[in-house]
């Protein structure tokens, strides 16, 4: 456990001494800020139109702002995750520092968990920026905080799955670009698999759609925690980390 924390602290440090963390934070804050501004603008215009027409349609901040925004974050996150994970192992393999880790009295799993945790913490930092925007909603309106909290939980679980898979892909190559591109491909695929359910209701389409990380986020965005979704993400995290461990072990058998 101590080793996990040592590795995690080292990884976090290298994220934050290099421009990568700041670049990601800036880009994420900008993009999310734009989404937020759009959603809010739409909400305000719609509200005014309702008033003009004299309708008293119930306006709901949670349903009309927070829920679509959370879904947006879950998709935008797919684009950021490869940039977080691509260096985790690929860089160590390229620079040879993997030899230091592999010859130190540290278990592979401690190394993997440390790196994954660092990636999770960086992603949480990205999410903190979205919280800044949401804080305005709480200042000017009265949204329900519980669905929002559930939404964040869902985002973290979803990111956990993708970060674990990204970590695994990073162990496969020395080249960060390849690791990043492959992770991006996997993330994208795990998103668009959901589309099959739009036009097809056969079993294969349902299976594919079920595999999509986005499908399982929908209930979280609504503020509902469903056991099957939580289990899906936890299984995904476990699978990713397990594959990473196998991949690290196989390095010892290849020269």
């Amino acid at each position, binding site marked *: 456990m101590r080793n996990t924390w040592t590795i995690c602290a080292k990884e976090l440090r290298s994220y934050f001494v290099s421009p990568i963390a700041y670049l990601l934070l800036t880009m994420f804050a900008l993009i999310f800020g734009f989404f937020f501004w759009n959603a809010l603008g739409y909400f305000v215009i719609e509200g005014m139109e309702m008033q003009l027409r004299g309708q008293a349609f119930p306006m709901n901040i949670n349903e009309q702002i927070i829920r679509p925004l959370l879904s947006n974050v879950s998709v935008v996150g797919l684009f950021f995750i490869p940039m977080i994970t691509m260096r985790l192992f690929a860089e160590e393999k390229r620079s040879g520092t993997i030899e230091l880790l592999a010859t130190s009295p540290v278990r592979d799993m401690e190394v993997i968990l440390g790196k994954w945790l660092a990636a999770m913490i960086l992603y949480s930092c990205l999410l903190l920026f979205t919280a800044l925007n949401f804080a305005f909603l709480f200042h000017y309106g009265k949204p329900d905080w519980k669905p929002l909290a559930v939404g964040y939980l869902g985002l973290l679980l979803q990111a956990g799955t993708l970060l674990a898979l990204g970590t695994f892909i990073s162990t496969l190559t020395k080249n960060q670009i390849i690791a990043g591109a492959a992770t991006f491909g996997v993330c994208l695929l795990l998103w668009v698999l959901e589309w099959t359910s739009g036009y097809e209701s056969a079993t294969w389409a349902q299976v594919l759609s079920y595999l999509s990380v986005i499908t399982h986020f929908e209930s979280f965005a609504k503020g509902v925690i469903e056991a099957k979704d939580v289990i899906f993400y936890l299984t995904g995290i476990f699978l990713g980390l397990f594959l990473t461990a196998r991949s690290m072990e196989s390095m010892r058998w290849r*020269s």
Partner: protein
Amino acid sequence: MRILTCFLCPTSGTASVAGFDILEQPFEVKKRIGYLPETPPLYPEMETAEYLRFVGKLKGLSGAELEKRIDYVCERCFVGDVKNKLLGKLSKGYRQRVGLAQAIIHNPDVLILDEPTAGLDPKQINETRDLIKGLAGDHTIILSTHILPEVEQTCEQVVIINKGKLVATDSVRNLQARTRGDESLLLEVASRNGQLDDLMVQQKLEAVPGVSRALCTEHKDASLLFEVQSQKGQLVRGDLARVVVASGWDLYELRSAAKSLEEVFLQLTGNQTPADAQENPPSELQS
């Protein structure tokens, strides 16, 4: 080397380090080895002290003990003056020394060094060699190198491996003696009055009892260089000197042409081309 450090698994067989099997108890082995790979495993974005702290923690040190070891290895490996510099900005010599500092931070029983002087300039090479020699008192050092004079200088025990097979394991001196058959001498003769006739000198040298063959190897301006083979056990040097002087020539040099480790190495690995043969010659220094 990488198998000994538990970085790779052997395809067959096993090994043990400090009494622990690398397959059965890799954790115990890892605690007892310090390893410096060919390229020091440094994180360019870290500072020296910070990096040593990280490695120390990985090796199981903590608190005051860790700080003490950091100070100690910094002093020992002469990296104290770059303690707060980024590793990415250090020169090759410093990187190598930080790599060594990293390897000894947890005071390991066995120190494994893979070509520690590769890519350094002559001054740095000397410094690194001295440093390694200095460490020899505290750790068992296994050193792999392609530079055979380095072995002669630093190692006590040599292991020559050719294509994965153990060819020889012995001390440097014994190895040299083992392959030497006839004794071979180098002799430089000069004459102050005019040219020397190499045939005449050769005849005179070969007439000395015990000498089996004399061969002129080089003509210099005013002197001749001879390689003289003598039978084993015959002490011919005194006689050779007397013959030269008695003939009115000057004796410039007379020394035993000890075989360099390089020749020994080539002989043991079957006289392949040097590039071929030196593919994997780890040599070992034990202290």
